[in-house]
């Protein structure tokens, strides 16, 4: 309210002649206030004032030529003031992001698993000390966001006394800016193009200019933040670039690739990244996978930070934060800072008031800092799968307006309406139905095959609903949302209703849908088969996939034909790697996230 008033005041005053005064008054007003507030407020203030000023002076400048210059001068002055504020605000120590402030500088401070760090360190040591002509100079560091990939690299570099040269991603061009530039003849250059140029330079000059070599013995090239690509063409370009880089680079290079943990392989970009990793790996790059940080190390780090910041945060809270972060340490630290920012808020209070601790954990998604939907979706899944109900009809008997047949009768649910739970989980309908499909059979009574069918049929309905989306040529987002939520509630309610004889609750690990793995390897196999189509049956026609899969391949297996041998071998390897990696992931999941609830 106050701000709005002030803005209005500016507008009025600036329409007067005395603009100078108006600006000054603005700052005299805002300065003391902003210092008393937290850092984010003053940043906003001047901006608002600026826009107000601009809007006010525009009509004027059309009248007077000098108006424009004046305005410019004001803006400059403005800027000075603005930076001044920033500096002064920066003096307050709690303003800095804790993530930056408590960035690990030594290997010991890293929350990443020791073995991983060691692995990376050894790799760099070898590269830095070995002869330069070793062609294996690229390291792929892959993992979900916020698990300390970049931090590890920096820490190792400082440990080894190496300098990091980072490929600086240019600031992205905003669309309106581009429009503006287009008139002035500046060419738009996508990040991808620039990256291409960079790789080209690496190729030409080898990045081993004598000055570099002479002055500093060890240099590490770091490519963080790869250009964003969309569509197959751009992606192909990126892949080519990276491959070139991997093959050509003469100094140790780390390429950081963040997996956006979208496991649903129907997603095009996920598939691309996967392919990219494989192709780079084939090109000779060494690959290190970072897993989510374990809860214990997050806890340790958080406690350390608390100690340094001299904040009192209860162990429970830290544990809660650590758990809900889903292995993302950056997120955990940010949450911690957020909590400490406003000690009166105490979102953890209800935790202590409630008698039963486990329920609180269940409600973790209501905390303001729940990491992501995958975690909260587990809670929703747990509710749906366990299907807890009242034991008698007593509560429901009063509203028995009409009587259902016995087979449609169910006890009332011991939870909110499924839609409410879904809403809290705000998970993707597709992810939800995949998870339900994977896990629901464990929760059914051993004899109840009828239930299994009911559940299966509802899931089939839900799947059908979801895929009717993809048929829509014109993407109608409204309709899409409705279908999504309808499908989600068909899946959820179907599981709840179908599971008529729920087993007494016992501990189950929730598996990750195997379907995703299956789809991945299916795609791989398909590509392989297509690529072999030519030589497998060296005939005059192209045979179609179905025939290949159902007739040629089995026959070739029997025949033990030469062509098929290599084919088979490949197949086996792929299968193996697929399954092992699946196990790994499964273990990770159950260790870190699931076991608690």
């Amino acid at each position, binding site marked *: 309210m106050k701000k709005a008033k002030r803005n209005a005041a500016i507008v009025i005053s600036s329409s007067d002649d005395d603009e100078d005064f108006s600006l000054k008054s603005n700052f005299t007003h805002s300065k003391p206030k902003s210092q008393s507030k937290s850092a984010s407020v003053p940043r906003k203030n001047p901006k608002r004032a600026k826009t107000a000023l601009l809007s006010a002076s525009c009509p004027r400048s059309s009248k007077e030529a000098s108006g424009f210059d004046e305005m410019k001068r004001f803006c400059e002055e403005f800027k000075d003031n603005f930076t001044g504020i920033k500096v002064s605000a920066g003096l307050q120590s709690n303003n800095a992001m804790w993530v930056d402030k408590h960035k690990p500088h030594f290997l010991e401070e890293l929350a990443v698993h020791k073995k991983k760090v060691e692995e990376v360190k050894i790799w760099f040591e070898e590269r830095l000390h070995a002869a330069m002509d070793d062609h294996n100079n690229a390291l792929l560091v892959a993992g979900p966001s916020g698990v300390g990939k970049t931090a590890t690299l920096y820490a190792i570099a400082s440990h080894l006394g190496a300098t990091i040269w980072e490929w600086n991603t240019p600031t992205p061009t905003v669309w309106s800016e581009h429009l503006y530039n287009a008139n002035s003849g500046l060419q738009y250059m996508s990040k991808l193009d620039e990256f291409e140029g960079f790789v080209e330079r690496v190729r030409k000059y080898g990045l081993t200019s004598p000055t570099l070599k002479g002055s500093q013995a060890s240099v590490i090239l770091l490519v963080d933040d790869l250009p964003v690509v969309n569509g*197959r063409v751009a992606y192909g370009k990126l892949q080519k670039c990276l491959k070139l880089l991997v093959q050509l680079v003469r100094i140790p290079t780390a390429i950081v690739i963040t997996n956006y943990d979208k496991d649903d392989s*129907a997603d095009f970009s996920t598939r691309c990244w996967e392919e990219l990793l494989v192709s780079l790996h084939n090109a000779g790059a060494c690959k290190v996978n970072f897993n989510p940080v374990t809860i214990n190390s997050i806890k340790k780090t958080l406690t350390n930070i608390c100690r340094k910041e001299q904040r009192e945060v209860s162990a429970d809270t830290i544990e809660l934060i650590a758990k809900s972060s889903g292995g993302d340490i950056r997120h955990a630290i940010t949450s911690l800072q957020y909590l400490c920012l406003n000690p009166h808020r105490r979102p953890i209070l209800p935790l202590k008031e409630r008698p039963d601790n486990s329920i609180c954990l269940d409600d973790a998604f209501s905390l303001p800092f729940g990491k992501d939907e995958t975690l909260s979706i587990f809670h929703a899944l747990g509710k749906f799968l366990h299907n807890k109900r009242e034991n008698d009809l007593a509560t429901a008997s009063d509203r028995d307006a009409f009587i259902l047949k016995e087979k449609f009768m169910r006890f009332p649910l011991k939870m909110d309406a499924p839609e409410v739970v879904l809403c809290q989980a705000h998970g993707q309908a597709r992810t939800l139905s*995949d998870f339900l*499909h994977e896990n629901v*059979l*464990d929760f059914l*009574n*051993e004899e*109840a*095959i*009828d*239930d*299994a*069918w009911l*559940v*299966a*049929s509802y*899931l*089939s309905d839900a*799947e*059908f609903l*979801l*895929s009717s989306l*993809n048929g829509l040529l014109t993407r109608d987002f409204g309709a899409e949302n409705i279908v999504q939520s309808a499908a989600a509630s068909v899946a959820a309610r179907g599981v709840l209703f179908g599971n008529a004889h729920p087993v007494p609750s016992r501990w189950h690990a929730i598996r990750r849908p*195997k*379907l995703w793995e*299956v789809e991945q*390897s*299916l795609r791989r*196999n*398909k590509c392989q*088969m*297509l690529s072999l*189509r*030519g030589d497998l*049956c*060296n*005939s*005059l*026609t*192209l*045979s*179609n*996939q*179905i*025939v*290949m*899969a*159902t*007739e*040629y*391949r*089995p*026959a070739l*297996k*029997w*025949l*033990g*034909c030469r062509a098929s041998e290599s084919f088979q071998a490949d197949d086996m390897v792929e*299968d193996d790697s697929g399954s092992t990696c699946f196990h790994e992931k499964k273990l990770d999941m159950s260790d870190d996230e699931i076991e608690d609830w």
Partner: protein
Amino acid sequence: MLWVDKYRPKTLDKVIVHEDVAQNLQKLVSAGDCPHLLFYGPSGSGKKTLIMALLRQIFGPSADKVKVENKIWKVDAGPRTIDVELTTLSSTNHVELSPSDAGFQDRYVVQEIIKEMAKNRPIDTKGKKGFKVLVLNEVDKLSREAQHSLRRTMEKYSASCRLILCSNSSSKVTEAVRSRCLNVRINAPMEEEIVNVLDFIAKKEGLQLPQGFAARIAEKSNRNLRRAVLTFETCRVQQYPFTNNQAIPPMDWEQYLSEIASDIMKEQSPKRLFEVRGKLYELLTNCIPPEIILKRLLFELLKKLDSELKHEVSHWAAYYEHRMRLGQKAIFHLEAFVAKFMSIYKSFLISTFG
């Protein structure tokens, strides 16, 4: 080289199975021209063989010199350009491709490729044909839009480009396209015909073939000639000389499915359902199309069922196959079918045996 390819008849007059069709085709092209053609019939009935032989008949031996390449077509689709990659097989006179591999982009491919072919049309000199032939596989899998655009292009470029369409079922080809083509139905060869072919191959290979054995292979092949020949060759590798009661190796995935079927019959419980799911995943991973899995599973189950249940089971098979076609993740529907079957079968067992 596999026998399937080795003994594929190269010319129309060497065709053994569809002799009548071959003769008619010969007559058709003897005038030096041919209309657009649509070959339809079940898999393994010899459509491709006939098409190849026909091309040879039209263009002479040059039709055999083919090269396989991955081509990228740049297609203008409204405001942007799309790159579509497809494997094509081409000789100087014809191009063969499966446009449905391109997925959603299939219609652009069809138009673009025909246009391109029309552009660099061979010049009609001394008896050479003034047209190229485009062989399109799996037309039934083309989207409606693609078929729609096909009919326009067919008319527009008919002077320079003839189409030979190849499809498993003609009801999935739109009426408009069908009416612009000469339709040739290729039925699956009868078992006796398959036996004849096997005899022919055995003679060429110098093998002793007991009469009953060939008949058994033919019976197992489900009237699919390609399969019969492939099976025959595997038998040869496994055991020669042939004996009449020699085991005929089944296709591995069929074997696997019949195991699944007996699993289902033995126990009906969510746990078993889960195991079955794992096995179905395995099949899917090996690129066996889900509808074929479902059909084969139905076949295996029907073999073991009482006739009362067959109606219901086949109904549900049809129901879930339709669902599968509309949906995306086949396993949901396959599993629903298995669950339904288990549920039906269990209640049947309870009602009969108490």
